Every structure is written in C-alpha cells, then in structure tokens.
C-alpha cells in the first residue's frame, strides 16, 4: 500500500509543480512542455486509480495529438518577451479580478458538494467492479448503448468542424503546376519515350 501512496504523491506533486511552471515560465515553448509533463502525470494518476484506458487515451489524444499542434503553433510564434511584459501592471487588476471570481466559484462548488445518498457507500468503488470487467469493455457497454445518441452527435460536430476548417483554408491557386498522379502512373515507355534518328551534324 505504501508504494501506491508514494507513487500518488510523486505523480500529483510533479503534476502540480509542472502546472505551476506552465503559467510561470518565461518561454512559451517551455510552458507547453511543462503542460505535457502535467498531462503525462495526470495519466499516471488515472492508471493508479484503475482507469487505465482513460489514462492511456489521455496520452494518445492530448499528449500525442493536441499538444503537438499546440507546440507547433507556439514554436511558430515570434514572441517578443520584453514587449509581452510591458503591459503587465496595466492588465493586472482585471486579471486578478477574473482569477478571484473563478476561485470563489470553485470554492462554492466544492463546499456545497454533497454526494447523492444512493451512491454514498459506493463512491470509492467504481461501478462495475474493476476486477470483474475490463474498463475498456465497461466504457464500451455504456457509450454504445445508453449514450449512443450523444456519441454520434459528438462525431457529427467533429465532422462539421473538420469540413469547416478545410473549407476555410483550402485555396486553389490557378498558376501552380500540380502533379496529376493518374497521368503520372499511367505513363509507359510508349508515351514517354520517343526514338529520333538524328542526322549527324544537324541536330534536332
């Protein structure tokens, strides 16, 4: 039992520390890298609490795909750090105000949180039991039966977002010479090579 406690404090300690570094480090690329470290440690916590599928999915989706895009964008930015720091005092009051409001709201939510009486005994135990059913099956059983409608709606929204992004960014420039793969593959020696008998001293 001690080992799991040790690991819990390690994961959560590193996660909190790197979350703090995300907002405090001066270089935005370092911020994103710390964000990734926080994700990885969060997935460690997921795995520790028996939700190994969610933990690995967090790594595949957030760290492997979303954070890569983040990193791309941040690396491409040409940020002048001195300029970035100039308006700091000017924006401090409004930033602090928003921060305090969020903090108070979070505290209100946490303080007013009451577990439903029916689930009171089972909050510490996942349903169904981890030992009986693998949690990828448990998730699938719920996702594709009870919540299939929401699942499909989410899929449609993603599809629309993807089509929208492509429509917004796709430009057909008329002057660009493009390779037509079918013509390229369809070429054979008959159409591509021409034998010419060149008379000596005359050229073509």
């Amino acid at each position, binding site marked *: 039992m001690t*080992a799991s406690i040790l690991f819990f404090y390690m994961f959560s300690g590193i996660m909190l520390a790197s979350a703090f570094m995300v907002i405090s480090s001066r*270089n935005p690329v*370092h911020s994103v890298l710390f964000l990734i470290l926080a994700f990885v440690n969060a997935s460690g916590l997921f795995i520790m609490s028996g939700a190994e599928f969610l933990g*690995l999915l967090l*790594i*595949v989706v957030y760290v492997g795909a979303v954070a890569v895009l983040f990193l*791309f964008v941040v*690396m491409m930015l040409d940020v002048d750090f001195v300029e970035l720091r100039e308006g700091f005092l000017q924006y401090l009051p409004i930033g602090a105000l928003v921060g305090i409001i969020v903090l108070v709201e979070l505290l209100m939510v946490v303080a007013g949180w009451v577990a439903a009486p029916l689930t009171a005994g089972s909050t510490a135990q996942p349903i169904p039991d981890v030992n009986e059913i*693998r949690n990828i099956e448990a998730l699938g059983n719920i996702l594709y039966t009870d919540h299939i409608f929401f699942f499909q709606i989410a899929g449609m929204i993603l599809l629309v977002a993807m089509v929208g992004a492509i429509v917004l960014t796709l430009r057909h420039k008329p002057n660009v010479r493009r390779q037509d793969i079918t013509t390229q593959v369809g070429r054979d020696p008959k159409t591509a090579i021409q034998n010419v008998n060149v008379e000596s001293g005359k050229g073509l």
Partner: protein
Amino acid sequence: MEAIFEYLWPVIVVFGQSLLLLVALLIFTAYILYADRKIFAAVQMRRGPNVVGPWGLLQSFADLLKFVLKEPVIPASASKTVFVIAPILSAVLAMAAWAVIPLDQGWAIADLNLGILFVFAISSLEVYGVIMGGWASNSKYAFLAALRSAAQMVSYEVSIGFVIITVLLCVGSLRMDDIIIAQQTGFGTHYLGMGSSFLDWHWLPLFPMFIIFFISAIAETNRPPFDLPEAESELVAGHMVEYSSTLFLLFFLGEFVAIILMCALTTVLFLGGWLPPFDVWFLNWIPGTFWFVLKMLLVFFAMAMVRAVVPRYRYDQLMRLGWKVFLPISLFMVFITALVLQITGWVAA
C-alpha cells in the same frame, strides 16, 4: 525486516528483468545495426564493415566507443536543458515500449490488459524527441527538419492506428498474449482443415492491412525510402544536425530501438508472435523466443532490403501516400472487417 524484504522482492525482480531485457535489447540492436549495414553493402556489391573483430562483428561497439569518447558540442544559442533532454527522451521512450512485448507466452515484464494501446501511446510520444531536439538546436535547418519529421510521424500514426483497430476487431482484446493466441486458429484451421499453422496468422486474412502496416512502420520510424526528415546524404540528419557525441548516439539508438519495436509489433499483430509455423512436436519444443526473434529478423530483413532497393520518395508524394491512399483504405477496411465479422458471426467475445 522480513516484511520489508517481502515488499521489496517484486521490485527487485522487476528491476532485474528490466535490466536483463535492456542489455539483451541493446546488444541485439548493435547487431541489427551491423546486419543493416552488411545487407545494404551486399546489395551494392560492397563488403560492408569488415575490419573491427572477425567479419567486422565488433563494428557497432567500436562506433559506440567513438561516439562516447567524442566531445559533446552544445550550440551557444541552444536552449540547453531541452537540448539535452530531447535525445534522452527519444531513447528512453523507445525502450519503455518493450516492457509489454511478449517474447514468449507470458514473457513480458508487464502483462498489461491494454498492451497494444500502451505501445501506441508510447510511440505517439516519440515525436517529442524530434520536435524538442529540432527546436532546442536554435537552427533553421534543424527546426524545419523537425517540423517535416513530426508531420510525417503524425500522419502515418493515423493509418497505423486503424490497422491496429482492424486486428483488434478480429481478436477482441488489447492484451498482447491474447492477440497471439487468437492467431492459433484462423484461415487454415477453418477452411483448409489443417492443424494450427502459419496460414492461421493474421497476415493472410488481413493481407492488405499487413502491407499497409509494414509501409507505415517504415515511414513512422523515418527509415528509407521515407527518410526525408534526415536524408543523410543531402540534409545531414535533419533535426539531429547540431547533435554530436553521446547525445547523437542516444537519438540514433532510440531510432533503431523504435525500428526493432515496429518489427516486433508486426510480428505480434500479423505473424503470430511466438507461435511456431507448424503445430508439430519438434517445432513446439523449440522455445517461443526463438520463433519471435526469427520473425522479427525476417521483418527487419525486408525493411533493410526496401532501404537498399527503393529510391527515396518526394515529400509531397509521401504525404499523399499517407493521407490520400493509406488513410481511406485502412478506414474502409475497418468497416469491411467489422461488417464481415458481424454478418458471419465471427465476432470475438
């Protein structure tokens, strides 16, 4: 005292196993490197490494010494911490995935229920070594190469994911051992009435996916003919331009361990892992590790031949192949496979 020992014993066992696997893996990598160079040389009618040790067998170790003894050069304007972390990350991640590869039945350090997803997660992290290395070098060439490489790895990961899903549909489990055991019965036993043999393995019913996985594995690990990010002759190793000595060695090692990992993954998914090619007593008597390594070597030999024979792709053709050819085909095959399994009632429980 007794209690502490009881408690520490599993830790010591796992540590010992990991160390053993690591040493075996690194020596194996050294000889895979040697084999790669020998095969490449043989195709070009050269002799390849032949000076250090008998038949050049110690060449890789000489290279190791050379790398380690050289002076590490860190560019003055580099982001030093990230610059050093990047190669370490890429080597460590490549080796970490080996924890779940079963070399024989039950012979994995961690027998995870989600073994294949673990490997997929780890290999999706490998792109960070490349991006961090390219960015931290603070050089335009390294940075552009890192972007190219990352785009390539992310693109081919998608089709690898779909191929894995197709196999999982046929197996019904994400455990590595279950995937291999599921290949004991299949095409050969159901249709030809034979005993368990190599015709039961997934390569036959899922042949198109086998080919797509093989090509995607080559592209994912930046091997020729898809080595555009680091084309040695023109781009002087892409994102590794600024690296030297041990740090470069770690990048190089990570890359090769990842290549062998892809060979192992092909073996597990399509070539029946540690299963012998025929279910007869004297082949069953040979330990499964032998068959596993033999199949891995076969896949690697194919990769080495591809490297030696096929000319390099152009970058836009590479991207076209990934997104416009492999992605639609593999997505379509997921549907087809699910449909066939559902109609014929072969769905794995």
